[in-house]
C-alpha cells in the first residue's frame, strides 16, 4: 500500500478544515471498501480522513416526529441491533444486516455504503424505497438531497469538493405500509448482489388497494434505479399486481453482462425479487405492529 497521511478529526469543523488543502482525500467511514481499494491500487489518496471519531457522525436516534437520523459513519450493527429500528423499519434492517459478516457490520456504515456508490450496494435500494433523505455538509453550510439523487455512476456520488455526507434521515413511514429488501447471491452469505430489490408498499386504510409503491433495483444499472410505479396505484395488492410490478422491474433494469451475472439472468432476477419483496412488504403492512 502506498503512503498517505491519516487524519482523525474530533469534530465536523475539524473535518472541513482538512478539506480544500489540495490533497487527494478519501474518507474512512468503516474502511471495509476503501482500505481494500487502497491496498489493491484501485484508489489513491494523499490523506485518509477517519470519520469514526466525530460524534455527530457516530450516533443515531428517532426525532419527535418519528424521523430516524443516522450519523453517516455509524456502524451497521448499531442500527440493526436497535429494537426500535427493528420495530419501525424492518426493511432497513433487511439490508443493514446482510452486508458482509458481523465483523464487517461492526465497522461498515450506511454513509460509506452510499458514498462508495456501488450499483450493487445493499443499503441504497432499501433507503430509496423508504424515501430517505441525505444531509450533506461543508464548511459553508449544508444541503439535503433525496437518496435517489445521490448516486452519480458506478463508484461515483454527487458530493462536491469540500462536502461530506453527514446524516441519513429516514422519514416516519406512512400508516398501512410495509417495506422489504431482498437480494440474490449465489451463496448464502459473504457475497455481492447479482440483483436486488427494495420496496415500500403503502395500502389503503382497509388494505384493499395499493396507494403507493416505491421500488428500487440494485446491480441492474450504472446506479441503483428507482422505478416509476405510478401505474400500480389503485390496484389490488395481489399476486397479479405483484407480477405486473415484477415486469416493470424487468423493463426498468439496464443490466450489464459480467462475471457476476448475465443480462437475461439479472432481468429475470429483479422480477422475482420484486415479487418476493412485495409479498414480504404486504405481510409487514398488514400485520399488527
Amino acid at each position, binding site marked *: 500500500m*502506498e503512503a498517505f497521511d491519516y487524519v482523525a478529526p474530533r469534530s465536523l469543523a475539524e473535518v472541513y478544515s482538512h478539506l480544500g488543502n489540495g490533497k487527494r482525500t478519501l474518507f474512512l467511514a468503516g474502511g471495509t471498501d476503501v482500505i481494500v481499494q487502497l491496498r489493491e491500487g484501485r484508489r489513491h489518496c494523499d490523506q485518509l480522513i477517519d470519520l469514526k471519531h466525530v460524534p455527530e457522525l457516530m450516533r443515531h436516534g428517532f426525532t419527535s416526529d418519528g424521523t430516524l437520523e443516522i450519523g453517516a459513519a455509524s456502524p451497521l450493527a448499531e442500527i440493526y441491533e436497535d429494537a426500535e429500528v427493528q420495530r419501525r423499519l424492518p426493511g432497513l434492517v433487511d439490508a443493514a444486516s446482510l452486508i458482509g459478516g458481523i465483523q464487517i457490520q461492526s465497522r461498515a456504515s450506511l454513509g460509506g455504503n452510499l458514498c462508495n456508490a456501488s450499483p450493487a450496494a445493499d443499503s441504497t435500494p432499501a433507503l430509496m424505497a423508504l424515501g430517505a433523505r441525505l444531509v450533506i455538509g461543508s464548511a459553508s453550510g449544508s444541503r439535503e438531497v433525496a437518496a435517489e439523487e445521490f448516486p452519480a455512476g458506478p463508484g461515483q456520488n454527487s458530493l462536491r469538493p469540500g462536502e461530506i455526507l453527514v446524516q441519513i434521515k429516514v422519514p416516519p413511514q406512512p400508516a398501512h405500509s410495509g417495506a422489504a429488501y431482498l437480494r440474490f447471491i449465489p*451463496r448464502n452469505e459473504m*457475497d455481492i448482489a447479482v440483483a436486488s430489490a427494495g420496496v415500500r408498499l403503502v395500502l389503503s386504510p382497509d388494505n384493499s388497494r395499493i396507494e403507493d409503491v416505491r421500488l428500487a433495483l440494485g446491480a441492474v444499472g450504472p446506479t441503483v434505479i428507482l422505478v416509476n410505479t405510478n401505474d400500480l396505484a389503485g390496484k389490488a395488492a395481489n399476486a397479479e399486481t405483484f407480477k405486473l410490478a415484477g415486469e416493470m422491474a424487468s423493463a426498468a433494469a439496464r443490466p450489464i453482462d459480467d*462475471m457476476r451475472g448475465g443480462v437475461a*439472468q439479472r432481468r*429475470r432476477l429483479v422480477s422475482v425479487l420484486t415479487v418476493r419483496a412485495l409479498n414480504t412488504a404486504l405481510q409487514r403492512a398488514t400485520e399488527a405492529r
Partner: protein
Amino acid sequence: MTTVEKPVYSVIGTRPIRPDGVEKVTGKAQYGADVHLPGMIYGRILRSPHAHARIRSIDTSAAAKHPGVLAVVTHGDLPAADDRVEELGETAVNVRELSSNILASDKVLYRGHAVAAVAAASPHVAEEALAKIKVDYEVLPAVVDVRDAMREDAPLLNEARRTKSMGGQVSDRPSNIASHNQFKAGDVEAAFAEADVVVEREFTTKMVHQGYVEPQNATAAWNSDGTLTVYTSTQGAFAVRAQLSEILRHPLARIKVVPMEIGGGFGGKTVVYLDPVAAVLSKKTGRPVKLTMNRAEVFEGTGPTSGTYIKIKAAAKDGRLTAVKATLAYEAGAYPGSSVGAGAMTMLSPYDVENFEIDAYDVVVNKPKTAAYRAPGAPAAAFATESAVDELTKKLGIDPLDFRRNSASRMGTRMVNGIAFPRIGNEETLDAAINSPHYRSPIEGPNRGRGVASGYWFNAGMQSSVTAAVNSDGTINLIEGSTDIGGTRASLAMQLAETLSVPYETIRPTVADTDSVGHNDVTGGSRTTFASGLAVYEAGMDVRRQMCARAAKLWSVDPDDVVYEGGKLRCTKDSTRELTFSELAKQSARTGGPIVGKASLLARGAGGAFATHIVDVEVDPETGKTTILRYTAVQDVGTAIHPAYVEGQIQGGVVQGIGWALNEEYAYDESGRMLNSSFLDYRMPTTLDVPMIDTIVVEVPNPGHPYGVRGVGEVPIVPPLAAIANAIADATGHRFTDLPMSPRRVLEALEGLE
C-alpha cells in the same frame, strides 16, 4: 458402520485430543507468516500482466536505485537448470520448467507468471519498487481453453514441444498436446452394438483452486557459511529441499527446510514458488528475506487443478455396465503435467467393465501450471462416468445403486492399467449406501431430487522415516517428517501407542525439520497415516525388541524368553520376572544407553479407497439456485485410526466437491485475464451453504498395513460433482454437463435464457 472381523484395539478407534490442538485454537501455533528473524527484510514479486508474451528485456536499474531497496532479481539470477524430470513423490516436475515457473525466462506463459522480485526494508517499499521495473513484452496470442489449445492452428506455448505417446512415439509437428496415452481392453464397438442402452455425452469442468486459507510464504536465510535455511508452509519439507537443491544447484545437506504449521494445502503445497526467490534475494543481500503472497497472487500465481473436456460413451446390458469409450483432455496450465492420467486410470475403478477404450491428452494452455488437488484428476473423470451411468440407469429404470452393485469391482478385478485389485471395500461401501437411513427414506416435495455417485482413489505409499526415543520416565518423543495437515500427529502417535500398549498421552509427536529426521515424502496421496504409520509401527516393534533385550540382560535370561505384552515385559520361564514399560525405561542408562526405535521405509501395499455419496437437493426454479438439503458420504477407510479426523476428512472433501459442482471456477476473459482472483468472486462454499455432512465409515482393513489403514483424505472429493449433477437432473429433468452448475447456468438452462 459396516465391518468385517477386526482385532480389538485399545487406542485405535478412540478420539483423543490432537497434540497440536491447543496451540492452534489459542493462536499460538507458528505459521510461516509468524516467522521473524533478526535483520529480516521483505520481498515482493513482479508478475506478468499478459497471458502470453515474449520478454524482450527487463530493466531493473530504476527499481534497484529506489530508496530502501536492497536487491532485485530476475531469472538470470537462478543457475541454469537441467531439462530433466525429477520425481517429487506424488508429482514429477521438469527442473528447467520449474525454474522458469519460479521466475520467467524467455517467455511469460500466463497472467501472474513471476518475472522479477525485489527485496526491501518493508513490503510497501518493495511494492513501490516493482512499479519501477521496466519489462519490454512482445505480446503473443493466448489460448486458455483446452479444446482451443488442441487445434492445429492454436498459438503454441512452446514451439519445440512435440506430442509424446505411449510407446515412445513423438509427433512430427509442434503441438500444445504434451502427451497422449491410451488404455484399452476388450472390444467396445462390439459391446456397443449388442448393448441394451447406450449413452453418449460431453462434459466440461473449469479450472478450480484448492482454496487453502493460508497463502504461500517463505522466509530464507542464506548464511555466511553457505548453508541455507528456509521456513515455509509446505506439505513436504524434503520436497522443498529437493526443489531448492535442483533450482539453486546447492547440496541437499547444506539446505535446511523448517516446515511451519500449515493452513491447508490439498496438494497445492507440494511445489515451490517463493522459496527459491527468497533464497536468491537472501544470498544477494546477506539478510533473511521473507516473501508472502496475497490472495490474488495465490489464484494467479500458484497451481490450481485442470479445466477439462471429457467425451464419454457408455453402454449397459443385462443391468450391468459393459463398455465405456472416453476421451479426456486436461489443461496442464503453462507446462506439461496435468492429472489426466490419474483421471483416466480411476474413472472406471468402481466397475468391473470388460470393454473400454480411454484416450488421455495432457494439454498446455496460457494459465497457471496446475498442481495436485485432492485426488488429482479423479473428480472430473468421475463427473463424466457417474453422470453417464446415472443416465443409463434412468433409461433402464434400474435403481442406480443396484446397477452399481451389479457392476461393482472387487478383489481380482483389473483396473484399466491392468493391475488387479487386492482386497477392496467397494461392494461393502455400496451395500452400506443402499442400506443407509438416507437412501431408505423417500425424497418428497417439488423441485427436489436425489443423486448418487461413486468414486475411487489409489492412495500412495512412498518413503517415510521416524524415530521413537524412549525417555527415562517412560514417555516417548516421536520424531516424524510428515507435515501435519489433517491430524496426523494424532493418528501416528495413536499407532505407536497401540504398538507399544502405552497411553496415547505419553507420546509427544514432533514434525521435524530436514536436518532432524530421515527423508519423508510429501504429505500427499493420502499416504501419511498409512505409510508414516507403517514406519511408526516398525519403530515401535524396534523399541519392543530392544526392550526385550534389555530385560533379558537385567534378568540374565535369553532374549527369546522375554515377551512384550500389554505394555509389560515378562519372562516366559519365570513368572516372577515382570517389568512395566516405564520401569524398564528408567533403567535404560544402566542397561546399555538410550532406547531409540527407528524405521525408514518405502511403503508398499497402499490400499485403494472407494466412496459412494447420496445427496438431496432443491433447485429454486425462479433463481436457479441449488440448496443441498441432505448429504451422506459412505466410504471404506480400512481402519479408522481416529474416527473424528476420518469423518472430518470426508466432510472436508465433500464441501470442496460441493463448491466445485455449484460455484467455483476460474473465470477468464479472452485475453487470458482472470476475472475473479479473490474469495469474493471465486465462490467457495461458506458454512451457511452446506448442511451437516453425514458420514458412514465402512472398515474393510487394508491387508497391506498391520492395522488395516487405507488413506481417507482424497476419495471424498471424487463423487460429489456427479452426485450433485445427478440430483439436479432428478429435481429439474435437466442434465447439466458443464460445471459449475451455478445459479446463472441453471436458470439460463431451465428458462431457455440467452
